[in-house]
């Protein structure tokens, strides 16, 4: 399956379909696309790979006219164009299959295909001609789907086909697919790749956006790698390999030195057995995961983001429901499918959780710091006077945590949104760590945090470990995992594909993260 598709059109003489020059896009303080240059040749399948949040979707949305670049030029067939909206992109022959399908659920396939491309104000005759044209496209590209079926009755694989047909119906020459296999079963994904090859043979240009290395190797001719908003490399797929791409994607960081003694693990404090989780779209995101965490050790979960780590953490924390599996904590065995505890009940079992996304799940940013300092623990007797909150006690706690964690500015009354990212993270960490948990779940503890704060956070985590807590750490920063964890579990596609010691070779871990040479496949 690693065999790249032979392609004679890849020589530099092949005409350029799309060229991006110096594209920049900012969302407030976030620089989502930084000086992006990209050349895509006609009749090729060009992959763009990068982690979640690397800026791939933003870049494609700019090309499709959904967003406007702050700076930069777009050239189609060598002509400089301005893409004001999606309508302009469509008329330039660009079609896009979005990650979340842009379909109207209670419309038929035919209605969805013609929406926006109707012939005239009256539908009648145009619909019949559209039906004929749709039939022709279905035959030409082997994309069979019942034109009268309602979208809501179709499986996701077929919904995606409708999206592709929609683009072809509008005469797209360039087809952008944003994370197309995220919702597909492996068989559906294989079929999609066949379709992409048919499209290529018909002379269409395909841009495939993904964070999955396998797909890049399986189907693309050329590949560009994005990391943190920057385009870091463009290569012929045949000239590269998965581990090189993985390295480019994640990026080599300076290994932060963490001063620590060898762990002295004791009894098991968290045991997960046979955990399976299905997300809201019915895709299995955690598959038969079993592991344990002992008191006095840090277990790190490594992996390219989007391989089930988030769902695993959320399920253990009681936020997400499992389809099967058990959890043993605090000496109690819980069936996560039948009697799933709520996040509050998990907290009562001495499990603390530092969520990956502090803005969405860790904080209420419009609350004052002292209010966030007890969020989730607000029912605890020490913060209550009868059925009223004991504001004085809460502020005292907040003040103590501010001092201990050096949270700046040291003002418990300040709105949390006004703290910097690193200090917000410290507020969450302080809240969860200071409740003396038995088990601590930590997701991306240093995402968006400056170097000084990173060091502090790492030190606190080691202190917690040495105080006999069991810590489960999820991070996309491989170096962070390697420097903190005492054992590393690697997740790929919902499976734990291997366990390694933190001294393991980096390229070996990289391959595991890419789903190659796993213990389980």
């Amino acid at each position: 399956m690693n065999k790249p598709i032979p392609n004679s059109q890849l020589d530099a003489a092949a005409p350029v379909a799309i060229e991006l020059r110096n594209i920049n896009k900012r969302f407030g303080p976030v620089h989502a696309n930084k000086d992006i240059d990209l050349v895509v040749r006609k009749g090729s399948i060009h992959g763009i790979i990068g982690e979640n949040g690397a800026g791939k979707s933003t870049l494609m949305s700019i090309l499709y006219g959904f967003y406007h670049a702050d700076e930069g030029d777009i050239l189609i067939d060598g002509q400089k164009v301005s893409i004001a909206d999606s309508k302009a992109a469509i008329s330039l022959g660009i079609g896009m299959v979005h990650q979340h399908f842009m379909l109207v659920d209670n419309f038929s396939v035919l209605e969805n295909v013609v929406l926006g491309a109707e012939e005239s104000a009256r539908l009648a005759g145009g619909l019949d001609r559209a039906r004929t044209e749709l039939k022709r496209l279905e035959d030409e590209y082997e994309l069979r789907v019942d034109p009268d079926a309602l979208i809501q009755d179709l499986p996701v694989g077929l919904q995606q086909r409708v999206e592709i047909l929609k683009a072809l119906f509008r005469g797209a020459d360039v087809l952008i697919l944003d994370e197309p296999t995220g919702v597909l079963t492996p068989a559906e994904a294989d079929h999609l790749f066949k379709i992409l090859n048919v499209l290529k043979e018909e002379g269409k240009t395909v841009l495939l956006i993904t964070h999955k290395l396998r797909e890049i190797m399986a189907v693309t001719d050329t590949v560009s790698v994005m990391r943190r908003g920057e385009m870091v490399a463009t290569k012929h797929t045949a000239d590269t390999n998965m581990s090189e791409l993985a390295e480019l994607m994640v990026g080599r960081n300076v290994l932060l030195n963490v001063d620590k003694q060898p762990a002295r693990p004791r009894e098991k404090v968290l045991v997960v057995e046979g955990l399976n989780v299905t997300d809201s779209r019915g895709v299995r995101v955690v598959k038969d995961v079993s592991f344990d965490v002992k008191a006095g050790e840090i277990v790190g979960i490594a992996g390219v983001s989007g391989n089930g780590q988030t769902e695993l953490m959320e399920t253990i924390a009681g936020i997400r429901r499992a389809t099967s599996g058990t959890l043993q904590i605090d000496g109690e065995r819980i069936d996560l499918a039948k009697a799933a505890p709520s996040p509050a009940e998990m907290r009562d079992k001495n499990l603390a959780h530092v969520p990956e996304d502090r803005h969405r799940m860790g904080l209420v940013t419009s609350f004052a710091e002292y209010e966030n300092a007890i969020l989730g623990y607000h029912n605890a007797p020490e913060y209550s006077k009868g059925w009223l909150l004991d504001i004085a006690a809460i502020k005292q706690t907040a003040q103590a945590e501010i001092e201990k964690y050096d949270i700046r500015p040291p003002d418990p009354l300040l709105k949390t949104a006004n703290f910097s990212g690193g200090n917000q993270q410290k507020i969450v960490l302080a809240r969860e760590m200071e409740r003396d948990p038995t088990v601590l779940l930590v997701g991306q503890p240093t995402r968006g945090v400056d170097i000084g704060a990173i060091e502090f956070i790492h030190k606190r985590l080691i202190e917690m470990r040495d105080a006999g807590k069991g810590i489960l750490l999820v991070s996309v920063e491989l170096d962070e995992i390697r420097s903190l964890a005492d054992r590393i579990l690697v997740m790929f596609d919902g499976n734990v594909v291997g366990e390694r010691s933190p001294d393991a070779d980096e390229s070996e871990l990289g391959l595991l993260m890419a789903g190659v040479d796993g213990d389980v496949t």
Partner: protein
Amino acid sequence: MFDTFILILDSTVRLSTPLLLACLAGLYSERAGVVDIGLEGKMLGAAFGAGAVGYLTGNAWAGLLAGIAVSIGLALIHGFASITNRGNQIVSGVAINFLAAGLTALLGQTWFRQGGRTPPLPEGGRFENIELPFAEAMRDVPLIGQIYSELLSGHNILVYIAFAAVPITWWVLFRTRFGLRLRAVGENPAAVDTAGISVIWLRYRAVIVCGMLCGVAGSYLSIAQSSGFITNMTAGKGFIALAALIFAKWQPLNAMLACLLFGFLDAVAIRLQGQELPGIGEVPVQFFQALPYILTVILLAGFIGKAIPPKAAGVPYTKERT
């Protein structure tokens, strides 16, 4: 007995008309994803505009145009708040209701000095009833003749417009490009946006159509059904229309049936005022007046199955950051 029944049905048609127009108005707006709780206010504003201009010009059509203009103006305020500025649609709708209730009373008193009413309309300022051909000749034919001459004939033009609007609305929604896009934008505006169609302009057009129909509904009250504007003359009809819309599951034909039902209840209530019912005695008027509301509550509480609103209704459209 049969005569009485025909008479009740006849007034059912008259009483349903403003409900039906307002209900269809709401249908256009909500199908496009803009929840409109301000139907009441727009009707009231239109009733005042039509009453005032009808009185001043003595021309019913000028009154109607004024009513529609006032209503569209209010609709555009709603659109500006909820589409352009992505405000809360309920709050905006409530504001329009208050605005209309206050302004009509204030302007009515300032301009006409009759306690907020407009003076009775002069000759020609009111839509007169239309006798359909042969209505007089058919009157003596049993059953069919009575239905034709009493029930179908003898209404003003706005009644016929209201009922003609039902199939037209159905046709527009399900057989035209505008309708396809309108329904799509109420379900998944992102799909419309990515198909290269302006979500904002589409929703504005829906809101304007809503304003037009509300304008006709309000004008009907002041220059067709009655002769002049009275303070708060809509008396909750906009809300009943909204209930009928949910009851009708946002379908035009159902909307007509729902409005006829509510109109019928109203007609029965008027008919039974002060009459003794065998075995029960005199039923208080208030009971019949409350009946449409009670029925709405009961029906909406689960007798009609689940009413699934357009998926994007009430949600301002923002391009999402991915």
